[in-house]
């Protein structure tokens, strides 16, 4: 067992018929048990990177090791896929069965898991994403957020060490988004699952341990969300915005009126309000 569950070395990938590399030289290690968010605009290479992480795509150059297994080794591809499960953007494209629990059972059945064990895994996976009460429902009648949680349960039932979610909330309304993000954060409890969340919503990255910003197929920034989001200029230069909290603090700082700059790493609403209120309070005392 290595410290990092996924290891990318000198990674390059170009789609056939394309002169441009979608991933153009990436070296990254994903630590076991960590929650990593990957942020980038459309075409930044973030989705391609995620597909390289579980062998859906194999590198044009360089290599990806999943638990030490090279994804180019076709004989061990199943092992790679069992280790790293994947959830995609559109829930409608990921659901195969006409009953929720059958859908969740699909992957373990294919892996040849014993029926009694499947039952247990399915129940547990559905409970974890808060969809157990819907186990006998028809997936097509569920809301987007519910369907996406069923898709996550389907991956969980394989008992992967790592789950990659590629823009899982892009097609959902605010309620669905909240449900799915709640489920994602819940994944980390207990078992030490590694979570990689690909997104272009800044707010979804706030709770990650580590935030990687991709642009032009390369890693442009890499640090804690606080470190990354406080570099407002750089993010804007990459065509990304910052959370509204940081945008407010940055705007106040730029006015030059306040006695000292406010900290740009106050990401949550409460932290931001604390930072602003603090400046006002300190002046009153004088």
């Amino acid at each position, binding site marked *: 067992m290595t410290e990092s569950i996924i290891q990318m070395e000198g990674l390059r990938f170009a789609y056939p018929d394309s002169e441009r590399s979608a991933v153009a030289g990436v070296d990254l290690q994903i630590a076991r048990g960590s929650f990593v968010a990957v942020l980038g605009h459309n075409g930044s290479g973030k989705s391609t990177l995620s597909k390289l992480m579980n062998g859906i795509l194999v590198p044009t150059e360089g290599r990806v090791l999943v638990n030490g297994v090279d994804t180019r080794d076709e004989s061990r591809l199943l092992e790679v896929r069992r280790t790293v499960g994947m959830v995609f953007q559109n829930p409608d494209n990921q659901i195969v069965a006409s009953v929720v629990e059958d859908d969740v059972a699909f992957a373990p059945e294919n892996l040849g898991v014993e029926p009694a064990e499947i039952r247990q895994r399915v129940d547990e996976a559905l409970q974890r994403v808060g969809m157990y009460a819907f186990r006998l429902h028809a997936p097509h009648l569920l809301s987007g957020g519910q369907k996406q949680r069923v898709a996550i349960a389907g991956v969980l039932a394989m008992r992967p060490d790592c789950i990659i979610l590629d823009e899982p909330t892009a097609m959902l309304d*605010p309620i669905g988004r909240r449900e799915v993000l709640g489920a994602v954060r819940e994944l980390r409890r207990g078992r030490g699952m590694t979570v990689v969340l690909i997104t272009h919503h800044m707010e979804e990255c706030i709770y990650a341990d580590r935030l990687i910003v991709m642009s032009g197929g390369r890693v442009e920034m890499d640090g804690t969300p606080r470190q990354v989001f406080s570099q407002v200029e750089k993010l804007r230069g990459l065509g990304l915005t910052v959370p509204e*909290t940081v945008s407010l603090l940055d705007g106040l700082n730029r006015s030059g009126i306040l006695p000292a700059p406010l900290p740009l790493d106050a990401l949550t609403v409460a932290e931001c309000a604390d930072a602003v209120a603090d400046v006002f309070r300190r002046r009153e005392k004088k």
Partner: protein
Amino acid sequence: MPILSVEHLTHVYSQGTPFEKTAVRDVSLSINQGELVGIIGHTGSGKSTFLQHLNGLLKPTAGKVFLDGEDIHGSRDMLHSVRFRVGLVFQYPEYQLFEETVFRDIAFGPGNMGLAAEEIRERVLEAAAFVGVDEGWMELSPLELSGGQKRRVAIAGVIAMRPAVLILDEPTAGLDPAGRESILQNILDYRRRTGATVLLVSHSMDDVARLADRLVVFHNGAVVMDGAPAQVFDRAEELKEMGLTVPAATEIALALRQRGIDIPESIYTTKYLQKLLLSLWESAGGEG
């Protein structure tokens, strides 16, 4: 005079079956010429059903829809013309592209209007320019374009009909911040240059707060709020109870108020909150 007015509109799906469901319940609403109205409501609130009545795609179970004072179901000719005068861009419109080339896809709507070829061509190019569809794409298959480019082509197809009312159901869903901003700017440009009335459905409270003159909130098939963004976001707690979010600036302003900072009015954009905080700072004693 309002360009669109809706009187006591009710829509019941599958009436008389065990699946009967009232999606819109007794909604009355007037939209003025040139207004930019943000439509808010969570999935299942009835907003999409409502919008599909505005260009005659759905027929009311009860109630009437008037365009320029005329009942849209009053005559066949009227119903036919409403399809062109009220343009509806659905969610994920890129899934509805079907022609062999981008040009032909954008030309489909004006083609149905019975216009001359030259006029169609002019409209296609104009619509394409409005939404940033490159002229070089015209002879490509829509399938060769990226998701964001396809979205633009689909919107151009509706704009090419030069509708007096443009309705967009989440035109920016799934796009990244840069793509979102650019499509919203295109829509604003279209409105500025043509004086069109725009109805914009969005889950992004930050976007509607910034852009709309007026917000209409749907909940359980009814209109529960209707007013200027300031009035609507003043009722942040109610919105949250309905499962809706409020703009980040409104949340921050609420939190500041709880921390004893005297923010006198409702806030819904970050820019305004910033301005207000700075003027509070200055009025309370200069250098500090």
